[in-house]
């Protein structure tokens, strides 16, 4: 760290060099008294040092809420969201997936999580005007093989799904070229993937969506009940890294998660309900949680057309800072996932 470039007293700079302090982080990690002892300066000098160093770190970092609200720039605006490709689903989410933060898609198997993940990988490639981010996607598989046949089907049917987009624009996009598939079946490979390869792709601006399918699979075999603390540390580490990448590159991170059955005894006997896997440690890392479920229909409700007789698929918002708990019905068709009004 080149201390000479800071606006400090030469005496302070000399003391910093002599005490072998190499970074701003080291200075802030020490208390005022420790710094006094280490650098042999008075408390007024130390206060001045702390203020100068903090100023340099936090220069120009203030925004008012009004500025945030009025920001219309594609890259920085909070109003910009990643569309899901269907207007009904977008309305549920008030525009789509937020650009900064980890969004979770939880649900039982065959609820449609991978379908939505693939659909997002295609949606992100559309122009800003049509709810995309004009960039590619990374799909990290931790369990199954990447469903490339299904992806091909979806690509062929894009015109049918996105009737709002003119045909020339869809034809111009080379969907398959911008989806990067990574396999990471264990924790170390996953760690490598997000710390090296992901930051490389994001730094080059080639991708603006990360889909992880799925988080729970990484932790299934390797951790028993006794290693909850170790698992928690891994989860917190991954969560922090993904969060930091998402913030730096304004890229949505969509994590697909499985569900656990919770057997709880309450006053009415033993009941069970489905809850997303990985517990509260993982929930604390999330910005938004969506739950996909399949509930068997009691019988056709009068007046509603039910395309899939027997079970209704529901996409519900479990929590989000900007959305009320709400839900909508959806179907999975050849061209993709579509909401039902």
């Amino acid at each position, binding site marked *: 760290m080149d201390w000479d470039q800071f606006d400090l007293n030469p005496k302070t700079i000399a003391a910093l060099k002599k005490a072998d302090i190499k970074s701003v982080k080291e200075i802030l990690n020490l208390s005022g008294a420790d710094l006094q002892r280490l650098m042999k300066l008075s408390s007024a000098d130390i206060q001045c040092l702390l203020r100068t160093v903090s100023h340099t770190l936090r220069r120009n970092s203030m925004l008012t809420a009004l500025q945030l609200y009025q920001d219309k720039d594609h890259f920085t605006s909070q109003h910009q969201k990643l569309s899901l490709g269907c207007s009904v689903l977008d309305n549920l989410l008030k525009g789509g997936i937020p650009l900064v933060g980890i969004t979770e898609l939880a649900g039982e198997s065959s609820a449609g999580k991978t379908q939505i993940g693939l659909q997002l990988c295609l949606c992100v490639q559309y122009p800003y005007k049509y709810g995309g981010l004009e960039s590619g996607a990374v799909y990290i598989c931790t369990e199954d093989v990447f469903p490339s046949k299904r992806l091909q089907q979806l690509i062929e049917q894009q015109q049918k799904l996105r009737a709002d987009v003119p045909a020339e624009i869809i034809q111009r996009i080379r969907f398959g070229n911008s989806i990067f598939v990574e396999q990471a079946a264990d924790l170390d490979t996953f760690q490598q993937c997000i710390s090296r390869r992901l930051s490389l792709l994001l730094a080059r601006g080639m991708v603006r969506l990360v889909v992880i399918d799925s988080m729970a699979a990484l932790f299934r075999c390797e951790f028993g009940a006794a290693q909850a603390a170790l698992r928690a540390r891994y989860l917190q580490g991954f969560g922090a890294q993904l969060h930091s990448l998402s913030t730096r590159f304004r890229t949505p991170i969509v994590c697909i998660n499985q569900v656990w059955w919770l057997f709880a005894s309450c006053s009415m006997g033993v009941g069970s309900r489905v809850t997303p896997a990985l517990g509260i440690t993982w929930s604390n890392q999330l910005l938004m949680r969506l739950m996909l479920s399949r509930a068997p229909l009691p019988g056709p409700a009068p007046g509603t057309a039910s395309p899939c007789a027997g079970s209704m698929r529901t996409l519900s918002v479990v929590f*989000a*800072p900007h959305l009320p708990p709400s839900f909508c019905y959806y179907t999975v068709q050849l061209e993709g996932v579509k909401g039902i009004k």
Partner: protein
Amino acid sequence: MQREVGTLPLAPALRARLAAAGFQTAQELLDTGPCGLSKEIGISREEALEALQVVRQECHGDAARTPGGPGATRKCTALELLEEEQTQGFIITFCSALDNILGGGVQLTKITEICGAPGVGKTQLCMQLAVDVQIPECFGGVAGEAVFIDTEGSFMVDRVVDIAAACVQHCHLIAEAQQEEDHQKALETFTLENILSHIYYFRCRDYTELLAQVYLLPEFLAEHSKVRLVVIDGIAFPFRHDFEDLSLRTRLLNGLAQQLIILANDHRAAVVLTNQMTTRIGQSQSTLVPALGESWGHAATVRLIFHWDNTQRLATLYKSPSQKESTIAYHITCQGFRDVQPAAVTHSPQGAELNPRKRPRTEEEKQ
């Protein structure tokens, strides 16, 4: 002038040398002069000059300082403190049940901590408070501004717009019902744009940025003297990973807490922090407890725990120096943080066995 050398703001090594050389009061230092001083202790003349300048400034400052100024010890009676506290404003939350158990609302000059599982409403309350702190005095508010420090990226400005619009409308309804002149005047400046422009937003991406931001807050609050609320949402997120050495974390958190307390007192602002919950594995069962450890529990003056009971959201006042431990139900609507309709019933503390170490306070028998 009779100030002891040990209390002067000089470098510790220099103080040690002065003590070893036999200097005891500031007056002796000033009498010796720079040449004599440098010869006696063995420091350069420049250093001696500097030291004497500091001493002179200190003594001058001591003489000029009026009692009650910043930094000097203030003497006052408990009666004066009581009167001061009673005139202290509260920031209302728009949920009257919650305001009641807090004794009027979120108190200025105190640190309030809100703990809860994800999705229970902590950020919603923070956004509500950032709007409510700006309510004009004639409507019962403190007419202040808000600083919002976001570490998780959960501040969605569209939601704040909804909350602010509902608050403005609420004030309009009051003004229409009561038809007073100062209400109309206050409403001219209490608009959506004004509210948004007085929420100062800082985004901190890791704990170093958070620490740096808190070092800069006193200066910021001195420049923006109308700020009456500082929100840090959330305090746990940057501190729960990346720490091999937990004692460093405890030390940093303690330092942070001290700085926030001084800030709250000096600038008459309320500090609101949000915390996560973590699982504590006990003998036979596991419970949810606030994160960041036991020692962090001492940092906040008032602690609220938000939790679920099936689908009903509940708020429990877990720690307060003056209010009873109680639980109420609340609602989050599109307009923000609100009461449950009809008005919420206060549950007695016997049911909520959240703090087994505290004796539940019982109602006094009234004649």
